[in-house]
């Protein structure tokens, strides 16, 4: 009897981990917190500055011939729970009742005098199962996490390409 009770108590506790957010497409190296030698140019981006790749820096001092055009899209998929879910006894054992999905896509175009120098794109899928024991992160948290990861991945690509990009950007 004690074993059964221990199992019943332990299983939901163990299943709580299933409510954590899984990130797909996030492989590859992301840049850490410090960015050295950002690229200078005119930035065309109207969103939250936190989500802008940190390798891009606004250059207001000289006439800008280089434009950094950054944008992102976020789409949500949060299906309704089935009306009969409430009668599912396995919910009490930590079974998932629904899965939320957030898809984040970041796009950066580096344009010089009307010519596209380089195009960067990164997409991520974040998924989270919800149980009666834990709803996990909210869609707002998942969106924020996704946008920060996309930013870091594009930063990482810019760091790798810096040696190739800098002469093209600075050339008259």
């Amino acid at each position: 009897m004690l074993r059964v009770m221990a199992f019943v108590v332990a299983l939901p506790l163990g299943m709580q981990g299933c409510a954590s957010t899984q990130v797909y497409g996030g492989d590859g190296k992301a840049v850490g917190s410090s960015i050295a030698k950002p690229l200078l140019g005119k930035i065309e981006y109207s969103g939250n500055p936190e989500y802008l790749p940190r390798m891009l820096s606004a250059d207001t001092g000289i006439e800008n011939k280089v434009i950094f055009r950054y944008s992102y899209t976020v789409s949500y998929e949060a299906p309704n729970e089935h009306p009969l879910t409430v009668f599912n006894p396995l919910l009490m054992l930590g079974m998932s009742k629904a899965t939320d999905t957030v898809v984040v896509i970041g796009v950066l175009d580096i344009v010089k005098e009307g010519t596209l120098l380089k195009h960067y794109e990164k997409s991520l899928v974040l998924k989270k199962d919800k149980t009666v024991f834990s709803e996990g992160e909210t869609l707002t948290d998942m969106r924020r996490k996704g946008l920060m990861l996309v930013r870091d991945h594009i930063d990482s690509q810019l760091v790798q390409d810096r040696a190739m990009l800098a002469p093209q950007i600075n050339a008259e």
Partner: protein
Amino acid sequence: MKNSRILMTLLVVVLAVTQFGCASLGKPFEPVASASSDQSVIYIYRPSSFVGGGVSYTIYSGNKAITKLYNGGYYPYVAKPGEVELWAETESKSSVTVDLKAGETKYVKGTVGVGFFVGRPNLSVVDPAVALSEIKECKLIPEEPLTDAK
């Protein structure tokens, strides 16, 4: 006699429980005409559903209470362009953030999910085509005094 009294009591309890959270809703859905071109509109709606129908919850943007979302109701929230977070809470919190551009219209759908003691709010951004087919069945939630979040 005793049985009929028990049945009557039961009926009153069932009615009280199922009608809890119901509100007198207004007109069927019609788009807002008054929003200016430098503003955006978020239609917050909740399709009518038997499951969780008695549960209603307040929608907040930041600390400001916007509306109480009733079963089968909708509310047009006129907001400034930018990032707007909408959230609601019963025994758990649900939150969704939308990016608004000037003159843009977005749709946020609320439902009720399974909880331990009370239904939990689920908010999500819905594709306009899907939202328009669902929201036409909803009725306007009237303005009522609400308490902002602390």
